[in-house]
């Protein structure tokens, strides 16, 4: 991916910024722990999103200033946050009623693997002796209207994360709508992976070489969701 010194690929922040462009004004959004959390920093001017955290808050705001936090006002990653005007607190059964009942517009999650049929693996490597922990990921992918994955295109050891079928234990079947990586934006269509947009300096050939399943050409009309 060397390209005459010009930019190749997206940084984590750029991935988050690209994803943020695809979220409509007024959407109710749940951002997973890690890269997904960055999305909140890049929402385009003029759009207001309402953030849901599954531990019981709609209208979540950014981290508090040092010393202003409350250890009982936290997000799903157990980090201290704030509540914005218009916020509401509720209990866990109501919070997951929002998720399971299809009331959230978008869930943004990380991934270990995404399969071409939309299967997602993001909670366990299935490693022997590991302590299994699932949290709310299975509920989010089963219930939220749209599921975006944001992830590096390949693992640290150079394996594709977008694959024909997941080797890791599944979080949900056929649940992912779109994937944002350092190399491209890719839809999970009925026909399988389909390019939406390449990152700067990245070619379709490079994307295909780094993807474990076929990637279809972008549709002429492809673009913002």
């Amino acid at each position, binding site marked *: 991916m060397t390209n005459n010194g010009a930019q190749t690929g997206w940084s984590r922040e750029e991935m988050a910024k690209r994803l943020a462009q695809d979220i409509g004004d*007024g959407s*109710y959004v749940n951002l997973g722990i890690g890269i997904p959390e960055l999305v909140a920093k890049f929402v385009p001017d003029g759009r*207001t999103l*309402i953030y*849901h955290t599954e531990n019981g*808050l*709609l*209208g979540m705001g950014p981290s508090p200033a040092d010393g202003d936090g409350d250890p009982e006002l936290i997000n799903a990653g157990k980090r201290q946050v704030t*509540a*914005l*005007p*218009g*916020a*509401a*607190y*509720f209990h866990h*059964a*109501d919070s*997951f*009623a*929002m*998720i*399971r*009942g*299809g*009331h*959230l517009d978008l869930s943004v999650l990380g991934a270990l693997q995404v399969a071409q049929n939309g299967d997602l693996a993001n909670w366990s490597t299935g490693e022997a002796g590991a302590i299994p922990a699932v949290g709310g990921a299975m509920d989010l992918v*089963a*219930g939220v209207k749209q599921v975006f994955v944001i992830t590096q295109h390949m693992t640290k050891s150079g394996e594709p994360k977008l694959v024909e079928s997941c080797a890791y234990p599944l979080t949900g079947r056929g649940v992912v709508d779109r994937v944002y990586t350092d190399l491209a934006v890719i839809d999970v269509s009925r026909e399988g992976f389909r390019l939406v947009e390449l990152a700067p300096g990245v070619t379709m050939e490079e994307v295909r070489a780094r993807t474990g399943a076929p990637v279809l050409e972008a549709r002429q009309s492809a673009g913002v969701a």
Partner: protein
Amino acid sequence: MIDKRLPSAAEAVADVFDGASVMVGGFGEAGSPVELIHALIDQGAKDLTVISNNTGSGEVGLAALLKARRVTKVVCSFPRTANSTVFPELYREGFTELELVPQGTLAERIRAGGAGVAAFYTPTAVGTPLGEGKEVREFDGRAHLLEHGLTADFALIKGRLADTHGNVLYNKTARNFGPPMAMAARTTIVQVERIVEAGELDPEAIVTPGIFVERVVAIARPAHESQLIAAGVTYP
């Protein structure tokens, strides 16, 4: 900028379509969204399925919607009222069908629909006529009925106070079916006496979070059915 306010009840119910399912809040007159229902009568949608605990009083509100022959089915726990013959006449005539559901099963089916729970097992109504034809299954040696979640195209609800994000507070026992119905409808429309800016309500005290509400309309002095009936009002 999130602002779920609509300027009038008429605009709030403008897109209710023929054949729609409509949840209507209220237990007796407490919580009955009279102005939204009257706007729906004016709007004209017909062949509606109404999900509501009762069928209204006199010839105002829900009873008036029925009287206008807009409702071909009601899902309901208690369709009798002391002072209305509207539903009984439509039922006997065969114009309006009745699905009678025990009140708690009705509330739970609505909550389940809103919570993405497809169906659940309840001990209520086992061995009664309202359990006939339903799947029976034992859990811990006790028989339960399978009941399905209920959703609807629209909900018409009466609150007391809302903010522009659609967070809603209620008045006393007028809360009743409002919160579960707000969860279960694709388009939830709430009339309240006053709408404040986001941030003016205590986030600890909100009863229906705004995510469940699509539209709020201010009706400053809502009518009570009993007062309308005492004044001899019929609608339209």
